[in-house]
């Protein structure tokens, strides 16, 4: 065995001057949004490493590897097409049902797989949470990031379907970028809320997948918004995912600018919820390790 001294450049490890900080009992009033975000930014290397890690680990040792990111939504789309189009004759606003469903499934899958995985992320990494300090929100964030990566991979199939069905791409498709940004905020907000709560109430690990299943049917994914009876609309539109999914489908499939009302509503809800969820998360984080 080699010599026992550690021989690297000693100065390499020191980052700037000595940080000073205080630890006090947890209180909601003591949560410092700006301070937390600064701290999070300092850990950008860990965020990156963990996100890459998620993607790597998921497809390691599987023969089809990254193809699963496409195969999974493709299979769901085919089942939906068979059940809802061929058997139930669901209307699809003039578009072929397959691409009609897939355009909505894509953002929905991003949301639902991100949130479902993130919910159990803290409890499943108790070995990190109880041993090492790092901003805990990095764990749920990394799962949402991995889901976003899968979304991008699965988007290539959407492009393929559009060519196959000769759906023209217009400049309005660029609306997809802010729409996905809003969806990401919303997914992060739900992930932070659920994961922080799940550490103490493990029921959420079971309840959230169920909730997401119900949520799918309360969102225009397998059916068009136009199929929802007019008198139910006011309640129906309270679901922020309606604005997100419907806008995405409009921008990509119909090539028209999305209906701004529902999209704006979703944006406001997503941003408020994200701030509230983050504050709540940081408050709960203080004693998380006692329950993990």
């Amino acid at each position, binding site marked *: *065995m*080699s010599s*026992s*001294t*550690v*021989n*690297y*450049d*000693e100065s*390499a*490890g*020191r*980052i700037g001057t*000595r*940080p*000073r*900080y*205080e*630890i*006090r*009992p*947890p209180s909601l009033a003591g949560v410092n949004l700006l301070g937390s975000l600064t701290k999070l930014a300092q*850990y950008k*290397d*860990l965020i*990156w*490493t*963990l996100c890459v*890690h998620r993607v*790597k*680990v998921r497809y*390691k*040792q599987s023969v089809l590897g990254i193809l699963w990111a496409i195969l999974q939504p493709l299979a769901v789309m085919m089942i939906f097409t068979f059940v809802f189009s061929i058997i139930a004759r669901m209307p699809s606003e003039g578009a072929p049902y397959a691409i009609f469903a897939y355009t909505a499934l894509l953002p929905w899958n991003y949301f639902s797989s991100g949130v479902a995985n993130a919910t159990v992320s803290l409890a499943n990494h108790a*070995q*990190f*949470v*109880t*041993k*090492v*300090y*790092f901003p805990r929100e990095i764990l749920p964030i990394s799962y949402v990031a991995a889901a976003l990566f899968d979304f991008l991979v699965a988007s290539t199939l959407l492009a393929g379907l559009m060519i196959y069905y000769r759906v023209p791409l217009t400049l309005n498709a660029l609306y997809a970028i802010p729409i996905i940004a809003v969806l990401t905020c919303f997914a992060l907000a739900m992930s932070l809320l659920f994961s922080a709560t799940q550490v103490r109430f493990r029921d959420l690990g079971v309840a959230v997948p169920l909730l997401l299943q119900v949520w799918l049917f309360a969102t225009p994914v397998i059916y068009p918004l136009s199929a929802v009876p007019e008198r139910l609309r006011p309640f129906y539109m309270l679901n922020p995912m309606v604005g997100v999914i419907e806008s995405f489908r409009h921008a990509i499939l119909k090539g028209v600018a999305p209906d701004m009302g529902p999209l704006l509503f979703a944006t406001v809800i997503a941003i408020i919820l994200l701030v509230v969820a983050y504050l709540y998360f940081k408050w709960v984080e*203080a*004693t*998380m*390790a*006692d329950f993990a």
Partner: protein
Amino acid sequence: MIDLTFDRVSKKYRIYHESEDGKSPSGLGRITRRLRGNWDDFWALRDVSFEVERGEALGIIGQNGAGKSTILKLLYNITTPTKGRIAINGRLAALIEVASGFHPELTGRENVFLNGSLLGMKRSEIRKKLDSIVDFAGVSAFIDTPVKRYSSGMYLRLGFAIAAHLDPDILLLDEVLAVGDAVFQTKCIERIKQLRNDGTTIVFVSHNLGAVQSLCDRVFLLRKGEVYRSGPAIDVISEYEHMLTNMPATASSRPTDVDATSPVHITSVNLFNTAGQKTTMFATGDEMRAEVEFMAHEALEDVVVELRFYSIFHNLHSHFSTESDDVKLDLEKGRGVVEFFCPELPFEPAAFSVEASIRRRESDFTQHLDYKHATNLHVTKGKPVNGAFHTFHTWSLKTDLHPDVIPVNAPAVGRNVD
């Protein structure tokens, strides 16, 4: 300069009770239990205040449940206090074994990056230290192999090597330091000493009194969540030992597989100084006598008595055996004492744990009739130790030299070869 401040810190844990019938409640039972308040508040720490100076090494000792680990968890910000304030001045890191965070499918290299980032290292920093980490862990040949193919030793060593490469201003050390074989442990100790010499502030929590004494200037003795004593390492440790020995039985005897039906038992091991007083404090070069008291339940022929001195982190420092010294011992039924005499204690200033064992000569050296962690030995500065140990020695000067002996100031043969 103060690096760490604990200002009247308390930490409460809430412990929920099982229901009366011993079954853990589910569903509604769980909810009503929370509402009824069927729990106990457990104060792991009560009003603990202290300060640690820059460059100081503080040891924290105490029995299980005294609150030692809670202090580390609070310092490391894994959890927060219920009351009080903690102030930290510097980059803080814990030298802990992090291998449990390894992902089995990832290679050693990938895991180093993952765990290094978790510990707060920058990717560029990890890249710089990668070779040194791998070298430290002794896994160079397997760095691109998935860690699931690693032996458990390699696994632990790599996990620990990452933590050992943090460059903290303040270092937290936990019990888990005893990882790997003797060679690896020595490396770890070297690394800690190196950090210490560089002026790193250290907080060390351990049951291993020897290790604490060797590393720390000042020691806290925790008892039921409160600081019971604090002061120079050697004083607090000896007080703690005194406390332990005055407690009902088995406090210091380590559990062994020696069964109660054994024909002989070691009842106690005591150390005596030159004045014949029982003590655990000796200076290097002091005379030391050890008495191994035994109770033989039957007469035993040809037994071997052994004394082992373990140093920091349970490395065997020295081993003395009546077998290797060719002493034949026949025990009669009843009580007796085997005496070990050492005219000049050779050990360097450090703390040792002393273990005594007794076995039949013909039996395997692991087949003890009895084996006890007997006592501790604290060696302080006495006769100088230049190197690893002191030994009995004399010097003399002779002046009436024979004429054919070359005087010291004569030119050495072969000096002017050119």
